[in-house]
């Protein structure tokens, strides 16, 4: 046979799908499982690796590694700005640092103000970076904030109440500076000869 042996036609249909009934027993079981994972925990916040070590003298190495992890996660998924001024507006004076990208462009990121640290029974740990803002018109003013902008309560406190997701790496959120830098050629080619209709830009 020289053709595809089988195609699932239901998957290929694009019209409205018929409602699929599920046995009640299954739905109940699924509901029970979901309820179990929806818990929060109180987690300690440290402002530096030293701060962490003084609270956990038997976990020097974990505290240092957790700090490094938090800094790395911040570089990866934390807020990024194209000007120092924009960063200061959101985080306050003396709160931002400049970095140079591989394309020798300068970008600006806030310093992390602390990190959540939670040790686990097996000797491991979990950590996540936290920011705070010293800028009065920022919603994060005086509060702990995560890389994706979630607010966790007053930054005077050394504890935050978070759920499991707070420790998971965040989708990398970027500060988009512009859009529309691709697609300009077709705009130009479409104008050719007053041709208004178009079908494909493939071939």
């Amino acid at each position: 046979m020289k053709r595809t042996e089988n195609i699932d036609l239901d998957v290929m249909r694009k019209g409205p799908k018929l409602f699929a009934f599920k046995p009640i027993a299954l739905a109940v079981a699924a509901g029970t499982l979901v309820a179990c994972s929806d818990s929060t925990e109180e987690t300690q916040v440290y402002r530096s690796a030293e701060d962490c070590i003084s609270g956990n003298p038997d976990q020097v190495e974990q505290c240092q590694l957790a700090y490094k992890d938090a800094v790395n996660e911040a570089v990866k998924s934390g807020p990024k700005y194209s000007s120092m001024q924009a960063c200061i507006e959101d985080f306050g004076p003396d709160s931002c640092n400049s970095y140079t990208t591989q394309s020798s462009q300068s970008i600006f990121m806030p310093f992390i103000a602390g990190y959540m640290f939670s040790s686990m029974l097996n000797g491991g740990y979990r950590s996540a970076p936290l920011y705070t803002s010293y800028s009065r018109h920022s919603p994060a003013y005086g509060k702990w904030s995560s890389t994706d902008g979630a607010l966790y309560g007053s930054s005077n406190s050394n504890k935050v109440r978070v759920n499991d997701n707070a420790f998971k790496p965040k989708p990398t959120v970027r500060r988009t500076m512009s859009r529309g830098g691709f697609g300009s050629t077709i705009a130009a080619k479409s104008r050719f000869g007053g041709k208004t209709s178009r079908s494909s830009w493939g071939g």
Partner: protein
Amino acid sequence: MFRSIIEERPHWRNTASEYGFTFHTMHGAAYWDESAYYQFSLQQIEQDIEAPSEELHQMCLAVVDKVIGDQQWLEKFQIPEQHWDFIRNSWQTKESSLYSRIDLAYGGNGPAKFYENNADTPTSIYETGFWQWLWLQDQVNAGKLSRKADQFNSLQEKLINRFAQIKFQHLHETLYFSCCKDTDEDRGTVQYLEDCATAAGISCQFIYIEDIGLSADDCFTDLDNHKISWMFKLYPWEFMLREDYADALVDSQVSWIEPPWKSVLSNKAILPMLWKLYPNHPNLLASYFEEDLKNSQLTNYVKKPIFAREGANISIHLAGEQVYASDGPYGDEGFIYQDYHPLPAFGDNFTLIGSWLINGKAAGISVREDKNKVTQDLSRFMPHIIL
């Protein structure tokens, strides 16, 4: 190989809307045409189309290797110099390719002749991989075609398998699919590929080319400002390399389908290069760059722009006289000259075979028909069978 009239499926337009095939009729004219089909023998398919397609593909890859290693050829191919390293790197690290479509002039006898390679943004893949497959199944079930009728079309199966292979290099990554706004055909094509990727277990999202953003740290972003790290684009490299975001291509570190080295493969300058490397190959037509035309024996030829799509800006010259010319917006980057070898005629139709390759493996054909000698974007798509 011959053309047969057949009754249309009575409700095929309803079926089309059920499956979301929205572009079967474009600008008031039929694009999908099932009032007839083409019939091939298995021998014609395997010996004259399948085997030469795979060989031609390998020959094209050899040209890419030569061009990428030589500054003179990169210039000749009109690749902007600031992107040479970007393209070279993509070739040297063997970035995965998904598909391509080789256009062949073939009428049932003699060697198929290679017209060109749509290796970057080939379209009509939904019509080929799914819609004509469904047509065959329906017509066999309706008793209009023999149960023994087959089709050269393992495209959907091979696409899904290929996506599943590529997925292993991108665990936990989202694959963004992208095309331009305002074209049902491109959106439908991309939706089909997205369906195939989903079937391979890949997590997919869609964004229009014009909506892609650029972040402060040179990442391409989606509309939620998430970094795009893996992207399928139905948009030609020759455009992308010349647009505003081209300078961010290296730092953005996106893994592209098709990869940047396809900008060499889909370039019409590949035709004279093939003729230089494989002169008199039975599946090739003599082709020349402008400066070599004088010393060639070519009297009847087709002049094609180095970059062009859908039959635009092509002219036919017979014994020194221009007998046909299509208009269009291309040609600024120069032209190549290809021996005039007209498409075979079936009745008053000129017929072109598109031969699909998935990662170098021949995967099926599409048949396009036109009253015109040059196949254009609105040429009709005809189903085919093997019997």
